[in-house]
Each structure stands twice: as C-alpha cells, then as structure tokens.
C-alpha cells in the first residue's frame, strides 16, 4: 500500500516538474488526496437506504411480507409479447413505452447471463423537486428540506455517512433492489438480438476479414415439432400451455389440473441433429475501464452499462464467437479474468490512460491476435488524465489503430470540470486521429445524467 502511495506521489512530482496548469494540478491533487486517504483499494461497499413515507405498508411491517422475486409469474411469452405490442404502438403513432432496463447481471460462474427487466413508466403531471445542483448537493439553503430524523444530536452534528455512490454497477444499476421484479432471464445473445432488432442498432459490416469456417459439426441444436431425436421438455410444456390457453383450459386465476390438459401432436418439440458450422473465434474485444478515483458513481455506472450493451451486441453479431478481454486501469493497468470482476471493482487511485492502451498493445502483440481476428477496443473513462497532453497516450493509441477494427472511446463526464473540456477529449481531438482515421476511431461524450436511450444511441455512434 505504502509502496503504491510513494509511486503515485513520485509520478505526481514528476508530472508537476514538467508543468501543469492550476486546474490540471487541482484535478490530480483531488485523486491523489483520495488515494492517500482511502488507499488505492478497489473494493465494494454496501449502501444504506432511507425509506420514504409511502413505501411503508402493513403487509411488510406487520407480517414480513416482502414482495417476492418470482420469475414464475412472468407469462409464457412475456418479453416477446411486450416488444411486439410496443412495435404496434409505434405503428399506431405513439412512442414506445417498454424500456429494456437494467440488464446487467453477470452470473458468478462467469458465463454471460443477462437479466432483462422490461420496465416502463406511467407518465403523469406530477410535481418535481427544484433540482439545480446534482442530487441535492449542499442544499443548505432551506432548513426544512431533507428527511425526518429522531434521536440525540444538536443542530449541525453529523449522525452518519455513506460513501458517494457506493454502487459501482455491481448489480447493474442504481435504485434497484426493492419491489417485485419480473425478470426475464435471458442471455447476452438475446439481448444483442433485441438491441439489433428493436433498437435498430446497425448490423456489423463484413470487413472481408472474417475467418472462413473450418469444419462442420453435427449437433442437436435445431428444434422440430412433431418428431425428432430428443424431446425438448421445456419447449414442449410451453407449447402445451399455449394450446390449452387457446382452448380456455388454462385460465387466469384458476387452479390448473395437469390431467385435464390436452396435447396436440404438434405440441411436441424435439431437438434434431443438424449440421452446424463451427467457427473459430472471429473477434477479440477489449473492454477497458477507467477505475480511478474520479470515476465514482454515475460515470462508472454509465460506462459499465454501455459496455454490457456493446458486449451483447457483439455476441449476437458474431453468433457467440467473440473472445472478450477485460482491462481495468488507474495509473496502472491490469487484465482481469471476467465480467464479474470487471464490473464490481470499485474506484480509487489516479489516472493514466496510456497504461491501459499500452497493455492492450502488449497483449495483442504477444498473442499475435491481430493476424487472425477483428479486434475491437472499447474504452470508458471520465476523461481525466494525469498525462494531460496525451504525450504517452496518443502514441499508444496510434499504434493501436494500426491493427484494430474499431476503437470506441466513451467519455462519461463526472461533472467536476467544465463540459467538453476533459483531458482525454482534448488530446484525442487535437491529435486529429478522429478525422484521419474516422473509420477506426470513434469517440462519444456523454454527461453524467445520460439515459439509457442516449446510451444506445451512443453505441450506434461508436460502432457504425
């Protein structure tokens, strides 16, 4: 730990000797102070919550009836049905209403499970708070604004604290956690499909670099109704229920007696042997995330959310033949083994973008990835960089651009500085690479209160 601090301080001294503007110095100081106080320790912290008045209710208070998290309730074809309905809305001339929200939930064993929560809002004319500053920061002006409280303490006494934005996107989004979720479990592939179809993300252009298939395998993957080799019990049951709903034998609110269900011959769904092309991995995607101290809260949330969407989209585009690598950086970069760690590491430390770019270049070089693969690099940062002029980062970036199919840089502004004036944005623009290599390098700058819709738009910008 001390070793780390010394290194950071040395780096700072070194940078200062080369000249910094007061604003730059201040930003660096800010992260440095934080690092020295809290250590450069990327760990998770829990968040307390304050319950507003109307969220109390009898069943929970008196009988411990917390809303259960039941997947069972989700109707047989819920998600597709909802999206279908949403499409119809558009045809009828009304904007869409379903949001495929909060879909980040990598499972513990590292496979790419994604939870899709179809959400919506009921819009009404309602009063809002006066919000000028971010999240009620300060807010000292009006002594009657705030929450209720009870107990000992004089005016001005501090009675508790919680870390600023402790949720680092660990469960995929702030504000989740109460209320019944009607989750639809799906995988990243499905999400990619939804993104492509529903949100009209572009299909990937064939760059002619796709590796040809090497061989065929035979696998029990195709489904067939009526006959086949292996009965697919889940799909069969689904069909039977659909049939019986149509026959009014299964009705809402009534007990279902399995003996009464009718089964049409067509309801049997089988898996049959089919010829499959066996692709080799065609794309390598590097996800690079800045987890320095200044990334706390919203920027991190935005970046990880966007990366999951991109990840899902690529998986769909390459039919699961994507290799992913995850890289985190503060002043130094490291590769982590899976999504889970990539997601859940908390922020601390300083920032040096160059370190991450350098690591990517090294990996590509060592493993000769460039020869056989399309390489994508997506980098999420808040735009602060101690290497203020990009002296180290730009050369690394240039090098990267010699082999990649696309580099997408997302700058999620943290709101500490002036918008559009972050270091990374400035030096990338200044380098002229954005124009020179327009087909290879894209940058998307978002503010900290960006919504999902904008995120998806941003992806379009990054990948089209």
């Amino acid at each position: 730990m001390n070793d780390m601090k010394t290194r950071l301080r040395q780096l700072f001294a070194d940078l200062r000797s080369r000249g910094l503007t007061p604003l730059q110095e201040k930003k660096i100081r800010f992260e440095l102070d934080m690092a020295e106080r809290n250590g450069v320790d990327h760990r998770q912290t829990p968040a307390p919550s304050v319950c507003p008045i109307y969220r109390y209710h009898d069943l929970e208070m008196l009988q411990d009836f917390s809303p259960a998290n039941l997947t069972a309730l989700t109707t047989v074809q819920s998600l597709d049905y909802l999206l279908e309905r949403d499409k119809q809305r558009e045809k009828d001339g009304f904007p869409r209403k379903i949001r495929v929200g909060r879909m980040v939930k990598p499972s513990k064993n590292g496979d790419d499970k994604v939870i899709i929560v179809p959400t919506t809002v009921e819009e009404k004319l309602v009063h809002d708070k006066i919000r000028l500053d971010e999240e009620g920061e300060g807010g000292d002006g009006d002594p009657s604004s705030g929450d209720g409280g009870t107990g000992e303490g004089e005016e001005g006494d501090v009675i508790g604290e919680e870390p600023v934005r402790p949720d680092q996107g660990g469960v995929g989004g702030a504000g989740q956690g109460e209320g019944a979720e009607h989750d639809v479990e799906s995988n990243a592939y499905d999400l990619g499909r939804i993104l492509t179809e529903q949100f009209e993300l572009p299909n990937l252009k064939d760059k002619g670099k796709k590796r040809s298939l090497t061989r065929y395998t035979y696998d029990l993957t195709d489904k067939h109704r009526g006959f086949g080799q292996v009965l697919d019990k889940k799909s069969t049951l689904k069909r039977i229920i659909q049939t019986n709903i149509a026959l009014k034998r299964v009705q809402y609110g009534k007990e279902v007696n399995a003996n009464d269900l009718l089964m049409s011959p067509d309801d049997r769904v089988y898996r049959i042997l089919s010829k499959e092309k066996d692709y080799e991995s065609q794309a390598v995607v590097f996800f690079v995330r800045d987890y320095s101290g200044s990334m706390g809260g919203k920027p991190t949330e935005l970046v990880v959310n966007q990366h999951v969407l991109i990840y899902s989209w690529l998986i769909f585009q390459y039919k699961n033949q994507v290799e992913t690598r995850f890289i985190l950086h503060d002043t130094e970069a490291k590769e982590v083994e899976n999504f889970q760690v990539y997601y859940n590491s908390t922020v601390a430390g300083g920032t040096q973008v160059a370190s991450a770019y350098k690591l990517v270049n090294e990996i590509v070089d060592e493993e000769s990835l460039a020869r056989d693969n399309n390489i994508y690099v997506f980098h999420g940062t808040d735009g602060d960089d101690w290497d203020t002029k990009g002296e180290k980062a730009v050369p690394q970036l240039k090098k990267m651009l010699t082999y990649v199919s696309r580099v997408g840089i997302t700058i999620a502004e943290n709101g500490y500085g002036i918008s559009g004036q972050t270091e990374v944005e400035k030096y990338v623009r200044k380098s002229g690479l954005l124009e020179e290599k327009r087909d290879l390098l894209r940058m998307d700058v978002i503010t900290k209160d960006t919504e999902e819709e904008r995120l998806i738009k941003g992806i379009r910008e990054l990948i089209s």
Partner: protein
Amino acid sequence: MELLSQHAKKIMEGCKERARDAGLRFQDDSLEYIVTNRDFLRLTPKNMIPTLYDYWVQDVEVMKEAGQYELYPTNPYETVINTRPPISYYNDNNPDWLNVMIFYHVLGHIDFFQNNLYFRHTWDYDFAGKALSDKRLIAKLRSEKGRWVDYIIEFSRGIDNLVGYFDMLMDLSVEQKKMTRIDFYFDVFIQGKKNSSIVDYVGEIEKYNQFERDFPGEGELRFIDDVRTRHAEFESLYEKELKAREKGNNRRDLLQFLMDKSEFLNQEENKWMHSVMEVIRTTSLYFQPQIRTKILNEGWASYWHENLFLQDDRISGHEIDFAVVNAKVTSLPRVGLNPYALGMRLFYYIEEQADKGKISYDYQRIADQYRRRKFDVGAGGGKEFIFNVRENFCDAMFIANFIDQEFVDKHKLFVAGKRLNKKRMTWQYYVKSKKARHYRKMVADALYHPPAIKIDVDENNSLVINHIFEGKPLLRDYIRGTMMGIEFLWGNKVILFTEEPEPVKKQPGQSQQAQQEKGPGEVKWKRVKYTMKDRKLNRVLVD
C-alpha cells in the same frame, strides 16, 4: 386465496367485541383471506383489489427510481381494503398472538375507513363488486376494440391524479348554496384584485357592518349597490363566476371535463371510451383518500393495536413477542419518516394535550416554560378529541395543527440533511434543524400533492391547461407523454402553462467550491408554454 380458518376467525370476532367496547365503530361482517407470495405478487399491481381491471402495465415492472419521485407515491394499499365487507389479508403461518395484533390493527383501519369524512364517497357501495363489473366491462370492450382500449386506459391513467377530488367531496357534503353577491365580493372579487391588502379588506368589512347598522334589514342590498357604483365590472364578473361554478362546468377535473366537452369523445363511434374513462376516474377517486390519510390512518391503527393488544386477556404471556414486532413497526427511524411511528405518537400526544386542557387559548398564551410544563386543568376528554380528529382530519391538517415545538422536543425529532463531504467522498447525514416549523414543512413537503390545474378552451378550440403555481415545477420528463394522451382524448391542440425554475447564472470558470459556498436556492421562475399538436411537443418561454 383461501378464507381464514374458523379458529382464527373466532379470535377475530373476539377482537371485534373488545374494539367496539373501546369505542371503535365498524360494520359487523368482514372477510379475511390467507394469501401466498404468489397471490401477493398478483395483488400488488392491482393495489390489493383482487377484482381490479387488467392492464398490461401490471405485468411489467414500473420504474420507480428510488427516491427520485417521492412525490409520486405508488403504494396506496393496506393489509385491509376499504370494501363492503372489508377484506384483509394474512400470512398462513401467523401465530395466534400475532394475528390478534394484526386484527386490532386491521380493525383500526376499518374504523378509520368507515368514519373518516374523506372517505364518505366510498361508504355507499362495495368497491370490490363495482371493480368486478368494471373489469368485465373492460374485458368485453377489449374483445371488440382490441388494443385501443389499452390506449384509452393509458391516457386516462395519465391524468387520473387530476380528478377534482375535493370538488366531489364538496358536492357530497352540504347541499350547494348559490353563491351570493356578498360571498363573491368578499371571497373572490376583492381578494383577486391587485395590490389588495389586509387593511383594505378589513376596511371593507367595517364598511359592510356600518351599512348593516345604518340600514337594518336592507344593509346588504345597499352595500352591493355601493359596490356596483364603485366597480362597474362587478356584475358581469359575478355572472361569469356563477356560470363557471355550475355543475358540469368543473374546471379542475380534467377527466370529467374531457368526457363532457371533447368533441372527439362525443362522436358516436367513440362513445365507448367514456365507459373506460369513467372506470379510471372512479378508481382514482376511490384511492384518493387513502393516500391523503396515510399518517393518520397508520397512526390510528397503531394506536389501537397497541392499546387493545395489551388489554386483551386471551394472549397474556406474549408481551415480549409483541414488543419486538411492535417496536419494529412503531419505532422512529434515525433517518426517515415512518408514518406508523409519527402518527401514533401524535395521537398519544394530542390525547394527553386535550386531557390536560392544553388545546386551548389559555394554554397558548402562557410563555413561561415551567408553567407550560405544569399546566393541567384536568379537562379530560382526550379520547373524545382523538375520535374527533380521526373523523375530520386528513394528513395535511394533522401535521399542520399538531406538530409543535413541544412535540418535536419530546420525541427528539429533527430535520436530517445530507451533504457531500468532498474530502472523505461520502454523503454525510447531519442534524439540520430541530425547529418545529422546519420539521412541519419537511413532513408537509413529503406528502402527496398533485398539481392543481385550471382548464379552459381558447377560441381555436385548443385545450388550455393552466398549472397553478405553488413553488414547485412539474416533472419535465413526463410532460410529453401525458400531453400526448390528453391531445388524443381532446382531439385537438393542447396547451400547458407552467413555471420552471432556472438557476441564477453562475460565473463561468468559477470553482466548484465557490459555487457551493454560495449555495443553491437562488432560482428565477420562468413561465413556460408547452404546446402539443399532432403528437409533437413544443416548448417556449413566455413573459
């Protein structure tokens, strides 16, 4: 959903007797159901009314974005619902003693539903039965009109918080007197004038009294004559106001207004939409009082479950179990607002105050702290007083009238603030104020408060909605969706006037620090006009 066992039902009947003896009043029969998690999940989006109409949003997680929209409460339901007979829900493995506690709590709610005047429009019919027929109606319409039924439900729900609840209550309460010229003059005319001061107002009253004294019997007439000569416009304004107040001319109930006045909705082929809108409107009106009496209702139920449980001879030996659960329900949180805890303490407090005769002018006049503390004229009647409060009050009145410094000090209440500590990168909670008036305002701000509006139609047949300014802006994200729905129902252009805050310009380049020291709160209010035409929203500033 199964009915409660006979054994438990018998206990419930015992509770009813004891509650009646204590003074609670409610109907004889009641229905109790056992609910499973699965039932609960189905009931939640239907606000615990099992027979409520189906709507696709109920199958989707509705985004609440914790903490952001406190002003948009979405949980107006209880363990017991206000139907005839009242229905309440239970876990199937509750021990008897716990059921007794819950029964008393439930009886407190039933008593409240059936006696509090804000519920009076729900007294004459059984909502569960009505909801069932509504549900069938909507299902039938859906089979004929398909998805358009859901659009109408959606657009109507979008404005179901603008239903003129208080106007409806007023219509119910006293028979409507025609507004006299005197009423109009004093209540509307001079108060609405520019630069009217209290001194002027009192002067006018004095003048009126003088006329009464000078011309007994015809003072009023002469006074009005005098007014007419002074204000030439008086008579025509009075006529206009009379017209506006006529029944069916309600300018605050948007749903009703659309049903009455929309040319689109009154075309023959669109008549069926009225039925859907009426269902949404009555459902909303039914829920309105629950959300406006949360603190009172929970406080009242908690007060009685605590009192009656401890007096109940059948379950002695479970006092400790009870204490654990009761503490969980009724303890004041270190930070946060618990309606059970706050309401119950207020009831105890005002009961004691009334018993000692402290709710009186004599007591108010005493400034001496010692004498205030020792004040007790033995007036009694505390019970009677709280029964009166449960009959006549809603949350806003409850809070405004009874939270005083004595109460705040007694329970060590304070307003908790939250501020950013940049050094530690934490949000710090701190004691912001211990003054009763701040606490009162904080609670009042947390209460449900839908925007007040006034509706008009302009010469181009556009619907004009005027949001009456109360120091709060509208939530901007929702304006588009809502207005699109209104435009559809109105069938023509819709205009919304509202005020929006604008921060007083900061100096560019000014550091974060300096901004914070200055503090927020400096706001300029700008009047804004939103226009929705052909499903496109347009926003302009007006001066």
